[in-house]
């Protein structure tokens, strides 16, 4: 599925600090807005974003309804070893998406 966009370098030197960017398609409905019917649209947000490097968590962020639709997150990581960087989003209504990218650390 093309609902996730990840920007990460394919290769890095060991110990280098690299930037990781992740964007996901999601409405991030706040639960505070009335819809066309006048009723409040129920909340539907992503609550948590986690990033892991070869299975070990390196970054975690808890969202609130104040995060924009199609949440974008950028953060940094020390390139430790070759392998897989996984990004996981979980939230309301059983939302769970995981995506990973491979990285070569020389």
């Amino acid at each position, binding site marked *: 599925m093309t609902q996730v966009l990840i920007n990460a370098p394919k290769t890095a030197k060991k110990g280098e600090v690299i930037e990781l960017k992740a964007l996901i398609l999601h409405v991030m409905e*706040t639960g505070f807005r009335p819809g066309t019917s006048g009723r409040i649209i129920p909340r539907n947000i992503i609550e948590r974003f986690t990033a892991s490097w070869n299975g070990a968590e390196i970054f*975690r962020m808890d969202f609130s*309804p*104040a995060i924009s639709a199609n*949440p974008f997150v950028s953060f940094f990581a020390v390139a430790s070893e070759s392998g897989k960087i996984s990004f996981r989003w979980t939230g309301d209504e059983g939302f769970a998406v995981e995506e990973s990218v491979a990285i070569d650390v020389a």
Partner: protein
Amino acid sequence: MPGTTKERTTRRTFIAGVALVSVLPFAPARATPEAMAAAIKEVVGDNAIREGRVTLDLPPLIENGNAVPLAVSVESPMTEADHIKAIHVFNEKNPQPHVFDARLSPRNGKAVVATRIKLGDSQKIVAIAETSKGEFFSASADVIVTLAACLEDLT
């Protein structure tokens, strides 16, 4: 609703109905500076918050409150002995005072987090960084929002 029933509507019930309708759109409670202070206290506890080390980067004038780029960077060596454990961001006038809580570790190398947020009104944004030694540093920014987020769904 009293104002629209088929039965004879008295002036009193009509006014009561109008009053009710005019109050309803404001029903979702807003965060207040006090609510923000309470939310900050929940994170910080009784520790002192010091200004400095934190840079909160966001545009001072925002045309569209639905997607406001925000970046928080904190000066830190990010070593095992001295690193930033968490970055919290709060606002004072959205419906809720929390914006996000990010958890960091020495594996991040740099204590920098960027995202895009929604802002319901012109207000003050506060970023708080928690160090591994249990210290708290903060930075704040005042922003002016011309088109607020959280309006009616027009689609």
